[in-house]
């Protein structure tokens, strides 16, 4: 078959930060998918009884896993707000360049605020 150029043409676009918000949506989505595996592990550990839950608590208590959970929380906040931005676009609203740039900034600010609140709740109280 003839090799045709494939969209998105990443190599020829001039960088704009709305592009970064787009790729970050995919990356945060993948991070959340990995978190789904952690959620499954946690639920199965709870269902299997106190001993396996103790092991899970040990795993979730590890610094690396805590960092992963923090990354998961950040990805959640971002994917939530940027997802709402996408749903708004699907209604045909906010698609003009200045609007898309403004909503990108709103998403970043909202993400950081929610992340700080959730991370403070989670880590100050030993959730993860």
């Amino acid at each position: 078959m003839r090799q045709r150029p494939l969209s998105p043409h990443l190599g020829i676009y001039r960088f704009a930060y709305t592009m970064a918000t787009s790729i970050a949506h995919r990356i945060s989505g993948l991070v959340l998918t990995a978190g789904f595996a952690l959620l499954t592990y946690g639920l199965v550990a709870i269902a299997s009884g106190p001993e396996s839950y103790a092991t899970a608590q040990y795993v979730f208590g590890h610094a690396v896993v805590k960092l992963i959970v923090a990354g998961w929380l950040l990805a959640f906040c971002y994917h939530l707000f940027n997802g709402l931005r996408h749903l708004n676009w699907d209604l045909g609203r906010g698609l003009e360049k200045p609007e898309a740039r403004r909503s990108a900034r709103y998403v970043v600010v909202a993400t950081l605020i929610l992340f700080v609140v959730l991370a403070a709740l989670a880590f100050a109280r030993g959730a993860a």
Partner: protein
Amino acid sequence: MSLQSPLTKVLGRGSAKQGLSHWWVQRVTAIALVPLTIWFVLSAVSLPSYEHAAISDWIAAGWRPVLLVLLVVTLAWHSALGVQVVIEDYLPTKAVKLTALLASHFLHVLAASGSIYAVLRIAFTHTAG
């Protein structure tokens, strides 16, 4: 009615697949996940205790097992659709794509089944203490 020529159909060209359904289900699950995930994450970070008994109490009480099963099913579905797009966009050959898609879908079904089984087991066997 299809506007594809017979040759195009045989070759599997053009939009003969489930593009619209994929797009639509991704949006429906996204909308459902907004309240479900906000509820879950806020609850998870504000539980009074993370002891086994306390966390089992929380999962088993009232409508929570139902909401958790809904969360897991919707999450797995939305996640599978999202990962599918990433695989289709970035992986090179058809063989690699197909292998990755199969693995992704199997793992998603496995995670969803495992989570649902765990939630139901806690709901049915745990008695609040």
